[in-house]
Structures are given as structure tokens and as C-alpha cells.
């Protein structure tokens, strides 16, 4: 069973976001497990402006590909090069080393609590 990390908020599209400023964004273990082993990740450029729900990249496994949707609007102020080099980090440490981007947030989209997201996806906290 996939784990949902408490203390984070989640989008229905399986991104997580922390309470930091700038906010750190990644994808949940629910999404990572569903994809299987991730072999490629594409992220937005440093300095890119993102909108709520806009496509900001994609993650690809041997079996499928999934687009990444921004849970917030704002400017990308940091991109995790380590996860681009080693996309398997998303499977091994989705809430830690495999963070994707940091965003200076100007507007939030609809977000779920960890409890709500876990319940919606049959996952455990």
C-alpha cells in the first residue's frame, strides 16, 4: 500500500506541496507506485511562470507516461537536477530527495489535506 506523508497538502493530480516559502513540489507515492519504475522526468525551466493546473512536465516509466500539473501559480525558483539525473529517486524517496521544483507562489489551486488525499486514494498516512 502506498504511503501519504502527513504535513503536506496534495492535489487531485497527485502532486504534493509543502508549506515553505518558496514552496517545494513533488509527486506522491500513490502516483509513483501507479507508474512503476520511473526512467525519465521532464521539468520546467528555472524562472518559468506556471499557472494553476498547467502542464509543467512529465514523468515516464517503462509502461506509461504521466503529465505533471502545477498545483499553484507562480515562478519556478529552483529545479532539482538530481531527480532529472536519477529519476528512480521518485520511486525510492518521493517525499524527500525526489522533490521536483520550488515555486514562489502567487496563487494556490484547490488542495487536499493529507488525510483527505489518503482517503480518496485508498492509501495510508
Amino acid at each position, binding site marked *: 500500500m502506498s504511503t501519504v506523508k502527513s504535513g503536506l497538502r496534495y492535489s487531485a493530480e497527485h502532486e504534493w506541496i509543502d508549506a515553505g516559502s518558496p514552496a517545494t513540489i513533488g509527486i506522491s507515492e500513490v502516483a509513483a507506485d501507479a507508474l*512503476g*519504475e520511473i*526512467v*525519465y522526468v*521532464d521539468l520546467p525551466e528555472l524562472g518559468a511562470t506556471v499557472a494553476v493546473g498547467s502542464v509543467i512536465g*512529465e514523468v*515516464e516509466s*517503462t*509502461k*506509461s*507516461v504521466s*503529465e505533471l500539473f502545477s498545483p499553484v501559480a507562480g515562478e519556478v525558483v529552483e529545479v532539482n537536477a538530481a531527480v532529472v539525473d536519477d529519476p528512480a529517486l521518485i520511486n525510492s524517496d518521493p517525499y524527500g530527495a525526489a522533490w521536483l521544483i520550488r515555486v514562489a507562489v502567487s496563487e494556490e489551486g484547490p488542495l487536499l489535506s493529507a488525510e483527505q488525499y489518503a482517503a480518496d486514494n485508498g492509501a495510508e498516512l
Partner: protein
Amino acid sequence: MSDPRRTALGAEHDALGATLTDFGGWEMPLRYGSELAEHRAVREAAGLFDLSHMGELRVTGADAAVFLNSALVGDLARVAVGRAKYSLICAEDGGIIDDLIVYRLGDAEFLVVPNAGNAGTVAAALAERADGFEVRVADETAETSLIAVQGPASAAILDGLLPEQDREAVAGLRYYAAAQLAVAGVPVLLARTGYTGEDGFELYVPNARAAELWRALLAAGGPQGLVPAGLAARDSLRLEAGMPLYGHELSLELTPFDAGLAPVVSFAKPERFVGRDALERRRDAPPGLTLVGLRGEGRRAGREGYAVHAAGSGVEAAAIGRITSGQPSPTLGAPIALAYLDPASAEPGTRVEVDLRGKREPFIVVPLPFYRRGG
């Protein structure tokens, strides 16, 4: 839709913590842990697969050989007892109903193995085509399990489970040959066939003894690097080996010629097999599309259904073909795909572009297979 059927090995998969998927009407293991590790194990040591979803149709009777020659495109009458042949069953218009492996078990006995999703259709087609022949077609799918051991360590793993008197026979078993003997004390039909591009064996066994055989193979193979492997690895392995999958590279809309399988069709045999007239007419017609291999120059993979364009063609230009299977290749470390392309662009070395969700990525036409063992 009814619930997917479980194989006789369902409890083994549960105990191994498999992620399950519905495939061809069956609940099958997709992966046990890491599909990449399973793929690599088959390339480097061995993998153990449950393939019990495949169909098993036993054809017996005095007319068995001549009947199969009338029902299938290949010349099965010329297959020696103890050997197997890859064949196709076609419709009257030459479209492919399924691809099959046919084992000749005796002068008047064959085992036909269709794909899971097509087993019922093939059984019905054979029953219909059996009219007027002295032959019996028995669908043994429900009571038969199929376990595959694939990879370079396969022969050594099996060797340890054989009685002394059978060891030499199995060591000398040729590719696409089969023998009836006991493995780990369980009577099986042991065939040196597979769908991974590696050396390997497929073991047909009655359901009642399947779990026992599975556990014996797992225990004997473990020290030699054998791991249970799911359908995810099976698909990436067959794609690297350039092998077609029904529903992707093969379909009712395609003939054996479209799929590059002309050698599988026998016009030399006398029988007026189903589809012969249509295929004789299509035989010398210029092909509409050609099945080719593509290798990506970037890191993004082309997937089934994606359009292929000529290199440098504008956004308005019509596609020159379409991908039927594609994913990142674990062995090659690059995206690979099978695609049907305009014959003018099918020459190896031709540069093309794949439309990856709105962005063109460079691919190059390469000879098949993508991966060849020992090469």
C-alpha cells in the same frame, strides 16, 4: 465484463506480493517488485513467468495434420514430431485472427497455443474449420497451466531438476523443440520456446501440479539468480527482441505481408487454407505500410498510437506512419518502438520524427531485432 479469471498460481502470486493486472480476461502478475530488475534478471540470469492465460487447444485424429494445413497459413504437415512452428490463423480476407505456436506431439496429435484474449475465437474458428475432417479439437485452456523459465541460466536451472536419464536430452533440446518428461517429479511438456529473445523453456503442466512445479523452479533457480517476472518485463523483453504482439503489431486489419511475416505463409502446400485466395492476390501487391524498428535519439519514448513524420516536415505535413508498441528499452538505455511506416521511409538509417504529445522528437529507423542475445 465478468471478473478476470485467476490462474492456478494465483495464491503463489499473492504470497510473492505481486501487483496484478487484468490481461486478456485473466488476472495476471504485472510485476512482483521492480519490473526493470525482472527484465535484467532475464537478460543476465533467469526469470520465472506464469503464462497460464495462454490458450491450449489439442488437435487429435487421423486428419490432424491436413486439417491444420487447411485451417492455418503454415505447413504443419511437414513439422517433425517433437518440433514446434510459429504460425498464423487468418480470416478469408487474409486478416490475421491470431498468431500461434503449434507443437507436433505425435503423427496425429498437435498442441495449438493461441493468445489469451483470442483463445475462444481461435477455438471456435478451428471447430468450424474442422467440418469434414476426421479430427477433434479440445480446448484444454481451463485445466492447463504454463510456466516459462527464460534467460541464460535456464538450462542449468532445469538440469538440476531432471532425472539423470533425461539430462542429455534436455541439454540437446533444440530451439523450437519439445519433449514430454518429468521436471522436479512433475510430468510436463517441456518446450524450448519463449518470447524474450533469450534461451529458455516453457512448461505445460496440469493445474493440479502447477504450484508444486512453480515452487520447485523458484527454489532451484534462486541461487542462480532466477526471480519471478511479470507481464511488464515480458512486454519490454519481447519488444527488445522485435517480436510482434497481437492487438498491437498484428490485427484483423493486417495481413501477414503487412507484418513482415511472409515466410510464415506456405503457398507450396496443396491445401486451400482459409485466406489463401486473398493472400495470393495480396502477395505481389506493393505493401501499404511496413513494420519497422525505431530508436529514439532523445530520452522521451514514443508510445502506441503516436504519429511518425518525415524528418524536417512541417506541422501541416501528413504523418508517414504510426507507432504500435514503444517504451524506453532497459537493455539499450534508449527509447525503442515498433511502427508501421510508409515503405519509402522504412530503410534503416532513415531519420524520422515522432509527435510526442505535440513536440517532435528525433528517431531513426533501425534493423530488427533491437536486441540479439550474445550480440
